[in-house]
């Protein structure tokens, strides 16, 4: 046996131990850190992105890369069990009554971005414009990435904090964030807010979306689903 203190082994085991403690308590540490740092990060804009482990957007897509469409070519189709199908351009959406929502954005994986500003059209307004046919009780949302889908019940879709968003933090919704147009369901975890929204269809019953088919809760209320206890945002 070589003489000396086994510092290497202690560092190794110490890191493994700290890692295990971090897995078990990291959720609490992170939310405490977020509270402490929030005045700093909101005052300094982009600073939060530089603090490791702090709350910034992570960009997810379920396909290879981001689907992309120009603002001019963009169309939102509203169909299914409606009185009148709609085929809306970005300009059509912008001509409709504009709503602004400022809420924390909460992901089911744990990260939360404070006070995100969204602009767009309330989904309830589109439902009024199309006219909900008798028998319709749920909505299916299709992403124009060709893969992602989401769902809401009719009553969830009529909430005043559920919108079709084209504005994000004062500018357009970037491609990475699901632009030019995405769904924004404020009271639910981020996976409900389908990116790259291409079509809305009214149907007779809830059809679980992409992540819901892989075990996520269909009713994704923040703080009351998916086994999580985050503070609600609205």
């Amino acid at each position, binding site marked *: 046996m*070589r*003489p*000396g*203190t*086994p*510092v*290497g*082994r202690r*560092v*190794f*085991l*110490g*890191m*493994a131990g*700290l*890692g*295990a403690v*971090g*897995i*078990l*308590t*990291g*959720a609490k*540490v*992170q939310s405490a850190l977020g509270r402490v740092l929030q005045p700093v990060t909101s005052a300094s804009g982009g600073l939060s*992105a530089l603090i*490791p*482990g702090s709350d*910034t*957007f*992570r*960009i*997810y*897509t*379920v*396909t*290879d*890369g*981001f689907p992309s469409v120009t603002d001019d070519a963009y169309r939102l189709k509203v169909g299914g069990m409606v009185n009148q199908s709609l085929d809306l351009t970005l300009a059509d959406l912008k001509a409709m009554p504009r709503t602004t929502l400022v809420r924390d954005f909460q992901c*089911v*994986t*744990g*990260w939360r971005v404070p006070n995100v500003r969204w602009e767009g059209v309330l989904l309830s307004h589109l439902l009024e414009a199309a006219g909900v046919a008798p028998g319709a009780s749920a909505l299916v949302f299709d992403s124009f990435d060709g893969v992602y889908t989401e769902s809401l019940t009719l009553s969830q879709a009529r909430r005043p904090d559920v919108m079709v968003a084209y504005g994000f933090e004062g500018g357009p919704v*970037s*491609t*990475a964030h699901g632009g030019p147009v995405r769904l924004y369901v404020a009271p639910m975890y981020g996976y409900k807010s389908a990116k790259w929204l291409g079509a809305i269809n009214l149907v007779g019953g809830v059809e679980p979306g992409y992540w819901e088919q892989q*075990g996520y809760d269909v009713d994704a209320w923040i703080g009351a689903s*998916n*086994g*999580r206890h985050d503070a609600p945002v609205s």
Partner: protein
Amino acid sequence: MTLPSAEPANSADLERFDLVERGLHWVNAGLFGVVMLTAVPLYIGSLAGIFGRRHLLVEIHVWAGVALPVPLLLALAGPWGRNLRDDLSRFNRWTKDDFDWLFSSARRLQARVGKFNAGQKLNAAFIGGSIVVMLATGSIMKWFSPFPNSWRTGATFVHDLLATAIFVVVAGHIAFALTHVDALRSSITGRVSRTWARRYAPAWLEEMERAEVLGTQRGVSTPRGSLAGSQSRSASADLKANRSVIPPT
């Protein structure tokens, strides 16, 4: 008639790393490179927009990460890993000189550093610990369904923090390599000069030269100009066996 001199005349380079160790180092470095490069756009949203293909990046990142410990374990497993195991034990054990070297700039000058200094020992332990923690947290992030959701958040938190530390440490490792070209060269050729060893690893040089003297005395041939690793090792093993006979200086 010649007597073994106190300072052996042998001026051949010393073997610092054998082929297995060098191969492991560069395979490891390559995998770390893949994991770290793919991590950048996964972490930094604005870059994600440029690279796209997140799904593909995640797959590359995850499988390179899962592969990371494999070369290390393979290199350690067989008889070919003798020198590696010997070096791991050097990394592990800290003498008073190591603490002096790390914590006191005054005593650092007098510290009798062995084959690795305390910084290199810390780096090795950190990288070893990092592989285990990143593999565990990354696995929870990727295959989350059996775990409570708070573990997933905690694992993401740990993975983020440690990733940042790894970027700093690896940047430091590369910076030290680029400013210490002889040491960098030894990660490729395996060899260092005795002049280098006298300056950076005096206790190791002494150990190697004692082993050479011992080898000569016992009639083990150590051909000049090529102090091959296996021979220096066997001489080194002899030295260990004879520790009671040859008092350490």
